[in-house]
């Protein structure tokens, strides 16, 4: 009895020694900055206070409530996030289904289908800015040749077109992540299920609705959760492609936070923006994980 206890205690000690470096580092890089932002958001610290922190209670939050630029950036972020995640799911599902078929050179096609995901977002932003260039861009050239437009479009210079362009680039860059996860899910579904279903007279659309979708639900939810959080914090792609322009049309929350801190040196307000973004993200993650656990239990019951 006591011997087992000492063994167990020794095991516990070893476990904690092994965990400690990782935990300390995670606390320093993840927990501390967030906690610090909560604290600092209660202070005004900007050029007006000569960069000295002055306690101001909830002033920063009151200011945020009336800050049209914040709400605009929040709206822009929400539209960007929902549109790109939905498009990525649809396209990712299509690509996963194609990659799950048997064909010549499948391994090579799979390799090229991961490639966009693995490349640096900032560099991809440069590539897409060049494609959407108003004078020499290939997007305009292709549309002109196809006769879809008469004169070149100023993609990154018009608010709505710039929004479309950054969403397009984001979809290109991150759809592979979703198709990789969905493909793994597709591969784990037994072909017998489809065979039995088609013997029962089901069409392939019916099998997709009744077998593939329900069984893939966990992967779909996990992929959307990850993508949702990432897209909500999108920075590199938009910073490089439009830097929030034209006229703030693509200014997402993270770009607004970045310029509040780095350009306007408004640290207290920047901290409050970080806090609110963090809380919004937490709420959305909570909703998504609730859905996830729900889908898992219903699947277990079925």
């Amino acid at each position: 009895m006591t011997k087992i206890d000492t063994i167990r205690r020794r095991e516990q000690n070893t476990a904690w020694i092994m965990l400690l470096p990782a935990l300390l580092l995670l606390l320093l890089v993840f927990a501390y900055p967030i906690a610090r932002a909560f604290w600092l958001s209660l202070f005004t610290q900007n050029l007006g206070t000569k960069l000295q922190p002055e306690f101001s209670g909830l002033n920063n939050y009151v200011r945020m409530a009336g800050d049209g630029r914040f709400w605009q950036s929040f709206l822009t972020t929400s539209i960007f996030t929902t549109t790109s995640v939905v498009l990525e799911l649809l396209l990712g599902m299509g690509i996963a289904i194609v990659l799950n078929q048997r064909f010549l050179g499948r391994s090579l096609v799979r390799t090229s289908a991961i490639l966009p995901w693995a490349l640096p977002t900032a560099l991809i932003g440069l590539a897409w800015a060049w494609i959407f260039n108003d004078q020499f861009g290939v997007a305009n050239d292709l549309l002109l040749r196809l006769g879809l437009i008469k004169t070149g479009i100023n993609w990154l210079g018009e608010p709505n077109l710039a929004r479309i362009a950054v969403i397009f680039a984001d979809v290109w860059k991150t759809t592979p992540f979703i198709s990789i996860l969905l493909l793994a899910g597709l591969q784990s579904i037994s072909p017998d299920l489809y065979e039995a279903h088609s013997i029962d007279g089901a069409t392939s659309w019916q099998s997709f609705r009744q077998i593939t979708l329900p069984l893939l639900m966990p992967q779909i939810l996990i992929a959307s959760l990850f993508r949702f959080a990432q897209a909500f914090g999108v920075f590199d792609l938009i910073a490089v492609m439009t830097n929030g322009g034209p006229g703030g049309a693509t200014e997402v929350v993270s770009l607004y936070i970045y310029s509040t801190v780095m350009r306007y040196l408004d640290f207290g307000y920047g901290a409050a923006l970080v806090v609110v973004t963090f809380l919004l993200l937490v709420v959305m993650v909570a909703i998504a994980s609730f859905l996830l656990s729900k889908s898992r239990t219903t699947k277990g019951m079925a």
Partner: protein
Amino acid sequence: MAVISKKAETINLSWQSIVLGFAVILVTIFCLAPILWQVLTSFKVNEDIAAIPTKYFPSRYTLNHYIELFTRRRFWAYILNSAFVSITSTVVSLAIGAPAAYALARLRPWGGKVILAGVLIVTLFPGILLFFGLLEVVQVLHLGNNYLSLIIPYTAINLPLTILVLRSFFEQLPKDLEDAAKVDGYNTWQMLTQILLPMTIPALVTTGILTFIFAWNEFIFALTFMTRDELKTIPVAAAQLGGASVFEIPYGPIAAATVIGTLPLVLLVLFFQRKIVQGLTAGAVKG
């Protein structure tokens, strides 16, 4: 009768394979065309780049844009910076993450479930929420323009994935092996370093490739903490190429910089496609 139905089936099948072939070609073009366009641009002379209507293939190939990056700018330094920071943070996050993963998988530490949940949640934090608090830390510790200001956050950002992937790997290992080692008088450390580590190498490679990719691609910390030109990493240096003049954006050098910055990752994907997929799915789905 049987013959007819068989014939119908082959026609049906060939229709399907035509649609499939078409889809495969579309997927490939969709994924590769933007990169290939950048590759083509990087080899074009300036007249071809600015030609209207667009010239798809260079009238003559040139290496000038690449030469410019290495002679008039410090691309050697940027490549070395990126490589050094990425490799170091990968090694450190494996060294710290592997023991943590093992502890979570096997030693049932008190509060292990909470730790695991925490690790899962932080994978969802975007860098913009962290850069601000870290900026202060970097200033207080005078780490600005020091490789550590990137290596430390990159290691931390890669820890969750490392822990999740390796934990699911350790959980799949047969437990008998460790029991046998314990009977033979190994303590936990000896068992970990002498018996488990050699078996873990494939999983470490998988994880290491992913962490290298993330570190190589990181932008916001590199942009904020490294302001001295010779210390910049490739993504930041490339993104700032256009900054010199608004009117004359150097499209050629930008394209060449994109190609240089993506090349190491293209090679990684070419050689390790399977491992990348394995790692990603293990990290995301099993966690």
